[in-house]
């Protein structure tokens, strides 16, 4: 029996900021001070506040330490764990808190206070490599209930009634997907899990797999029972090594306990799960391409119909859901469809996990009820833009989504409200942009991504996106005319309507929505040959203000191409022909005499 638990985050974010060393240091220091039989050290999944990692939470008082280094560990052990005096200097400081000493425990912070954790409920709370801890929080009870008390039809009805929709991007009602597949007769059926999270900036699926892998396994077994399948596949990116390891451990433990395998709970129901690793092609997140890839072929989409519910993996009826969707299922079974449907608004029920990134103070994962205003996410939970910059827009849904400009900051974030302004929730990536971001450049960034990731099967996507990128390059280089902008728009709609799969059909979205909301920025690039945000290199120059320049020569010394000249103690000058616009001079100047124009 341990009197205290030290939870150290072992998600990918905290692992890269050095949490493995912190765990080791805790184990060492605790045994050195003779506390190793009193205090347990537990490696957990992601806590969400990745920007402040490595994160350490000490229970029972839930003291929340941020940015803990291995050097800090002896102090935490001797002060907090032995003498009960929390190490104040390491406690997370809430940037929004009125009284900065008010925050001690996790749930007091602005970041966590407004969140409702359903899919992430166990992330950062349990040891994902220990099945007993998952069972201790009620794990596998839902599977037990389904197998012993419910018919497959009742299970499907429960999921239908909950109003759960696909969390991977499409937003298709999960229960309906299952219902369409269940009656199809075949010698084999399959349950697939899409863990090929490819949107730049989205990492909620990774965190669920790293922090609570059993919830996905349990949900897949439930789905298997509902549609009459005995085999599941999880298609996970090989770039997620921690997630892959924990999934392997979880599957092994579940098999040892007989929670996967044959005759589960003595009911005669068999279900097994295998892993398939993806090599990281974005298109493999598309359902038909994903199945083709599991079959061992080159990951390319195929036309639908036939839909996977009829003819999917290996030509058999198949359902495919995303990781976060599955993570909701066991709780819908245990707490009931009504409970789930009580959260959210309109046709968007439950909660959604968003990955906040870009120009935001609290980078990380947040889970909130559907319909939460964007302002709450950006200002309260996210803590606003760093350095007091002005919030300009947020890109949702990654390269398939659109941007929401600051003027829509009070929009409720759910499937339908975002669709109204041409945006999607997508998988839940939210990239925040401030006044220093150029919207044309953002559109270009996402289009470069889709051009790279287009599988090349259909012409509209393969060639259309490339021509669009060329037009965008022309605009950012200041060589475009207003005709080009019209052409770009036309082409965008053409690619959208003629592409074979979701990748191509959504690839033009960032362009369409930035033109819609930030047309003036495009026009500034084309007509005034000016980038308002000062991002597009071809359209701006570094200039030394002669009045402010003291002639210290610092800039001339750092310039890598020798573009700066001038005499000592006299104003210097930049040769714009030679200048490569690296910005080194501006960073070096102590007198703020250099500006972008």
């Amino acid at each position, binding site marked *: *029996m*341990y*009197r*205290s*638990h030290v*939870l150290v985050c072992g998600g990918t974010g905290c692992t890269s900021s050095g949490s493995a060393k912190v765990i080791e240091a805790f184990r060492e220091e605790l045994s050195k001070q003779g506390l190793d039989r*009193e205090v347990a050290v537990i490696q957990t999944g992601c806590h969400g506040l990745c920007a402040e990692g490595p994160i350490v939470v000490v*229970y*029972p*008082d*839930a003291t929340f330490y941020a940015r803990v280094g291995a050097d800090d560990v002896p102090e935490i052990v001797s002060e907090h764990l*032995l*003498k*009960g*005096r929390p190490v104040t200097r390491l406690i997370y400081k809430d940037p929004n808190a009125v009284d900065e000493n008010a925050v001690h*425990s*996790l*749930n007091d912070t602005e970041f966590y206070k407004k969140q409702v954790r359903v899919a992430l409920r166990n992330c950062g*709370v*349990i040891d994902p490599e220990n099945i*007993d*801890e998952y*069972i*201790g*929080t*009620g794990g*596998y*009870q839902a599977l*037990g209930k389904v197998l*012993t008390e419910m018919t497959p039809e009742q299970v499907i009805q429960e999921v239908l009634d909950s109003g759960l929709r696909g969390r991977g991007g499409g937003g298709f009602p999960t229960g309906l997907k299952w219902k369409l597949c269940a009656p199809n007769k075949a010698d084999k059926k399959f349950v697939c899990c899409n863990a090929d999270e490819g949107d730049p900036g989205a990492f909620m699926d990774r965190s669920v797999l790293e922090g609570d892998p059993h919830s996905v396994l349990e949900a897949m077994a439930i789905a298997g029972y509902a549609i009459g399948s005995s085999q599941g596949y999880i298609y996970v990116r090989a770039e997620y090594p921690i997630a892959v390891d924990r999934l392997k451990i979880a599957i092994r433990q579940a098999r040892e*306990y*007989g*929670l996967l395998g044959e*005759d*589960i*709970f*003595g009911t005669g129901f068999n279900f097994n799960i295998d892993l398939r690793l993806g090599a990281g092609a974005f298109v493999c997140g598309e359902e038909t391409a994903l199945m083709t890839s599991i079959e061992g072929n080159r990951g390319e989409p195929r036309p639908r119909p036939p839909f996977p519910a009829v003819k999917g993996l290996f030509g058999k009826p198949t359902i495919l859901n995303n990781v976060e969707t599955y993570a909701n299922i066991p709780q819908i079974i245990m707490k009931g469809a009504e409970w789930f449907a009580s959260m959210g608004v309109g046709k968007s029920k439950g909660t959604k996990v968003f990955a906040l990134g870009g120009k935001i103070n609290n980078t990380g994962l947040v889970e909130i009820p559907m319909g939460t205003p964007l302002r709450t996410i950006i200002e309260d939970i996210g803590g606003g833009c760093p350095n007091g910059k002005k919030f300009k827009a947020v890109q949702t849904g990654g390269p398939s989504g659109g941007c929401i400009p600051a003027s829509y900051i009070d929009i409720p974030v759910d499937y339908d409200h975002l669709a109204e302004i041409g945006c999607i929730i997508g998988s839940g990536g939210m990239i925040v942009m401030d006044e220093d971001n150029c919207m044309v450049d953002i559109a270009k960034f996402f289009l470069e991504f889709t051009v790279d990731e287009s599988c090349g099967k259909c012409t509209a996507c393969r060639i259309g996106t490339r021509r669009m990128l060329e037009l965008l390059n022309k605009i950012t280089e200041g060589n475009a005319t207003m005709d080009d902008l019209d052409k770009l728009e036309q082409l965008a709609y053409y690619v959208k309507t003629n592409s074979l799969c979701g990748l191509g059909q959504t690839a033009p979205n960032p362009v369409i929505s930035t033109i819609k909301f930030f047309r003036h920025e495009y026009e500034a690039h084309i007509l005034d040959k000016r980038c308002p945000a000062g991002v597009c290199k071809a359209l701006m120059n570094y200039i030394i203000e002669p009045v402010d320049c003291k002639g210290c020569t610092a800039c001339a010394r750092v310039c890598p191409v020798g573009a700066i000249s001038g005499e000592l103690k006299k104003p210097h000058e930049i040769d714009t022909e030679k200048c490569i616009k690296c910005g080194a001079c501006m960073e070096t100047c102590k007198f703020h005499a250099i500006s972008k124009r």
Partner: protein
Amino acid sequence: MKSLAELQAIREKMQSRVNMRSEGADVTRVVVGMATCGIAAGARPVLNEFASKVQEKGLSDKIVVSQTGCIGLCQYEPIVEIFEPGKEKVTYIKMDAEKADEVLERHLIGGHIVEKYTMAASGLK
């Protein structure tokens, strides 16, 4: 796993362990003074006794056992304070593991303050 009962058994075994990590609003807090004076007077066995018994008896969703620093009455250490929601704080002094057991049984479970160990009983106010 051949039956739900097996699953239930694991759950019950593990529940007290993971419940320590839930933050309930109306939990009773047992706070043990663990400053240098407290540790010297033997606060650690008291703390450990409370912590393990609470988990053994499956009470960790209702009772939180934690430490605090010096309460300021070093000659009465080990000191244990019990905060029950909506009730006045009870302070026990000169505790040991056996007394801790008694307090757990009679006060935390039974609901009767063990007067003889309290600070009030010693004449201190």
